[in-house]
């Protein structure tokens, strides 16, 4: 939708859309600000005295983020940032609204705003410091190990059990959910590992019943992830976190290899582990019964029941900002913020929020499609999927689609570790999208390409760099890549090889000695093409 074909219909140029991006951002921020204004109008009948400061801070942060990101990543996806700010704004507004229930009013929204600033600063720092995201590919095993340590950290003495799940650690007086950081670290690790080994994983192995089974030696990582997920399920008592990471791994292996056998294998393994836990550990049964029959034990399932009452009270259009009773649901600011949204903004508001999450996932997957680097593809796809799984697990848990988990609601629920980690995820998505959407290396001339591709019998002499050859329809990779990849690079050259020649050098990256000077020119599309 944001891509448009230029002249020949071959080259795809992503529009940068700086104005639309800014307008979307303002619109998204206005929605959050409207929540703040309506809350006060509905509760007090007037705006609080400090509203200009709040507006200045809120829109100022948005504008500053936009300018910095735009400056550093001019081709980055224009929708990601507004979607994120929309969620942040509605979340902040709701936390502030719940703050007002207490007498005297609490100030959690202000703390959360500080965390937002920290998240944005971290994200912008990443955008500025990581000159080439492919650097992140270099240490898959270290990152893998680090991710596993983070994932299992709550089982150490640092871990604390909250609301039945042991997915938090307490350090220096602060609570963190290490899984929030682990999802980024492990996505990087898997992307790096799979970018290196995908061909081996995809090709080798015996065929049984139409499935090409993985070789035993390739099963190591999946076995490690399976065991780690089961540890999370059994000892951290959190189905959501367990599902999140195992699902992420299996999905990324599938994306890398394109082989359904991995998915079948993963699903079977997870089902077997889950069944084993259900049989062996009483708490799993308790969780399942709380999920299916919460009303059988009112006191124990108080929170889920209150959330259900809240949804029913909110109805289709909601009670309105400040007019519901979200305070009756425990943890309405954090785990159950979507219940508060459903109560005050209605099912319609909640559906809108879910769709905005969907937009972020869709933009991430879109970046994965158009990215030409296997690492970037895997990374973007992985981050999008882990995001989708997280949203599915927590909102599904709150709305009783799934057993409840202790995961946070990205960008909305109160909590610093989640805010910073998710901003880092968005930062990486922005960096990859900037690279994926950057226009192709300029071709010698627009007319040449057109005439050559039109003349089927022409024998083309490929220059010393094969990637500058025109696209031919017969090339399988070109068909597969469709409009996602600029035609000039995708032909003939295997992706890995292509990456080695680094045609997508960042503007201020050191010149690649293997690159001829004429290739450093970049095609600059004009806005509105």
């Amino acid at each position, binding site marked *: 939708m944001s891509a448009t074909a230029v002249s020949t219909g071959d080259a795809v140029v992503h529009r940068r859309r700086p104005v639309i991006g800014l307008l979307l951002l303002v619109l998204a921020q206005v929605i959050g600000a409207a929540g703040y204004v309506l809350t006060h109008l509905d509760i007090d009948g007037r705006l609080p005295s400090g509203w200009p400061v709040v507006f200045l801070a809120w829109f100022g942060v948005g504008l500053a983020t936009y300018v910095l990101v735009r400056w550093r990543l001019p081709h980055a996806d224009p929708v990601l940032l507004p979607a994120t700010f929309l969620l942040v704004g509605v979340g902040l507004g709701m936390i502030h609204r719940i703050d007002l229930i207490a007498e005297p009013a609490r100030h959690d929204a202000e703390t959360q705003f500080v965390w937002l600033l920290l998240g944005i600063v971290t994200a912008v720092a990443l955008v500025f410091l990581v000159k080439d995201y492919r650097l992140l590919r270099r240490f898959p095993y270290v990152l893998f190990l680090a991710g596993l340590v983070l994932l299992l950290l709550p089982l150490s003495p640092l871990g604390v059990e909250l609301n039945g799940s042991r997915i938090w650690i307490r350090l220096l007086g602060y609570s963190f959910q290490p899984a929030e950081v682990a999802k980024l670290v492990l996505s990087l690790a898997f992307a790096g590992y799979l970018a290196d080994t995908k061909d081996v994983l995809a090709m080798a192995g015996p065929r049984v019943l139409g499935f090409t089974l993985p070789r035993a030696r390739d099963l190591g990582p999946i076995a490690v992830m399976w065991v780690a997920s089961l540890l999370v399920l059994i000892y951290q008592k959190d189905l959501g976190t367990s599902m999140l990471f195992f699902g992420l791994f299996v999905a990324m292996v599938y994306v890398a290899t394109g082989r359904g056998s991995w998915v079948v294998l993963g699903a079977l393994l997870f089902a077997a582990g889950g069944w084993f836990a259900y049989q062996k550990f009483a708490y799993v049964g308790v969780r399942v019964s709380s999920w299916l029959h919460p009303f059988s034990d009112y006191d124990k399932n108080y929170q889920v029941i209150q959330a259900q009452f809240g949804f029913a009270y909110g109805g289709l259009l909601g009670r309105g900002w400040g007019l519901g009773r979200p305070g009756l649901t425990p943890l309405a600011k954090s785990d159950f913020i979507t219940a508060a949204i459903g109560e005050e903004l209605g099912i319609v508001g909640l559906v809108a929020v879910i769709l905005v999450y969907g937009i972020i996932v869709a933009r991430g997957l879109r970046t994965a499609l158009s990215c030409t680097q*296997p690492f970037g593809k895997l990374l973007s*796809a992985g981050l999008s999927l882990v995001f989708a799984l997280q949203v599915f697990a927590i909102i599904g848990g709150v709305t009783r689609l799934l057993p409840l988990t202790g995961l946070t609601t990205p960008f909305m629920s109160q909590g610093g570790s989640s805010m910073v980690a998710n901003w880092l995820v968005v930062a990486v998505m922005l960096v990859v999208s900037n690279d994926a959407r950057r226009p192709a290396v300029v071709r010698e001339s627009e007319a040449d390409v057109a005439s050559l591709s039109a003349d089927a019998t022409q024998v083309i002499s490929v220059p010393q760099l094969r990637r500058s050859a025109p696209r031919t329809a017969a090339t399988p990779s070109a068909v597969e890549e469709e409009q996602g990849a600029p035609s000039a690079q995708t032909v003939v050259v295997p992706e890995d090889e292509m990456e080695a020649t680094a045609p997508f050098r960042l503007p201020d990256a050191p010149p690649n000695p293997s690159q001829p000077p004429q290739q450093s020119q970049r095609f600059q599309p004009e806005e509105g093409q």
Partner: protein
Amino acid sequence: MNSPIRRTALVASILFLALLVNVSIVQLWRQGSLSADDRNRRVLDAEFAQNRGAILAGDTQIATTTPIKDRFRYQRSYPQGSLYATVTGWYAYDFGRSGLEAKYSTELAGTASSQTVDRLVDLFTGATPVGATIQTTINAKLQQVATQQLGTKKGAVVAIDPTTGAILAMVSTPTYDPNKLATHDLAAARSAWTTLNADPGKPLSDRSTREIYPPGSTFKLVTAAAALENGMTPDTLVNTPSQLTLPNSSSVLGNESNCGNTQQTMDQALQLSCNTAFANLGATLGAEKIRAQAEKFGFDSTPMTDVNAAKSQFPAKLDAAQTMLSAIGQYDVAASPLQMAMVAAAICNNGVLKTPYLVSEVRSADLRVLYRHGPDGKPTMSTASAQALQQMMVNVVQKGTGTKAQLPGVVVGGKTGTAQTDPTKNPYAWFVSFAKNPDIAVAVFIEDANVERNDIAGGALAGPIAKAVIQASR
């Protein structure tokens, strides 16, 4: 690598679709049952914060709502709280509601299905919804007199218009002030609740309609009605020994007044409230005929739905001795004062029982009638039997145990009763009566009658109360 990405994108869209479908299901499917759940404080609080309609007795507002500057915005108040507590019931935040406040809660709150149109209009005009007004049949004067007459005694008075079934007075003492439970000072309401529940006088019990007691000799009216309907007359002679040994038992039944040791006419037996005569009548009629008559008067069914009145009971499966005891209102027979007033009302109305009702009309805020009580009635006995029984009851007041209820120039019929369930406690005293032109039926019940256990004493205690209520209705 793109086609697996597309497939995972498809899976991601299915996950999101599942979320969207699920939240829609919460809305469409579960909303009704979730909102109706009585643990749903959101719904309860919202209702508590509504501008509830008034409850009227005649033109007097006995329950009303006034704006207040707190989180509930409207305060329910009861201008003469303790006088009408039995009728209105209470409406409390933590302790639910009772009486009409409970039974007509949705109408008062404006959330009844009959008020859907009003709610829509309010939604579009921006008006604050106002609940419906409940018009009761209570006569303020009778209610006041009955309450005054009971005074500090534990008991109840129910007065009915026999020609319509309208409840004219409904009093239970000791009473309570529902304002203390309705207050938004929740701590004060809680302490009032604790105090009222700890009170040995049980002020929160509605003795008039929701409690049942042994009716004692007043039940002889039912036995007499059954006898008249089964071919006997007031002049039929009944064996009236001074003592009667119950069949298959060593228990001996005696009379509390001078009934002699031979035979009495049924008329005289009622005047003197002879236990042995009515026990023998019961044996002659059999349990089935007495039960059939009792059920025509309303026993074993809910007599009035406006306040969830209790079912009075005539026991099932009686042997000969139990039948004889039941015929004089002992053993497991139990009736509410409302039920006994219905017996008197049916007799007074020539055998036709009008279903008692407390709410004559429900009007929306714009005075549209949402509900109006319609006439009904069903026969309990023939007109001849009813008129014969009327005369027998008049004789009770003229020359029997009920002389304390005599009212010059007014045709008053009545029947006294005492009953004792526990020898260590004071007996219950009853007086069930009617007056003609205009017709009224009054049942008086005194739970803790500090008198000796006989009908004359019971009549002396309860009779004057009935008389005062009848006089006030003139």
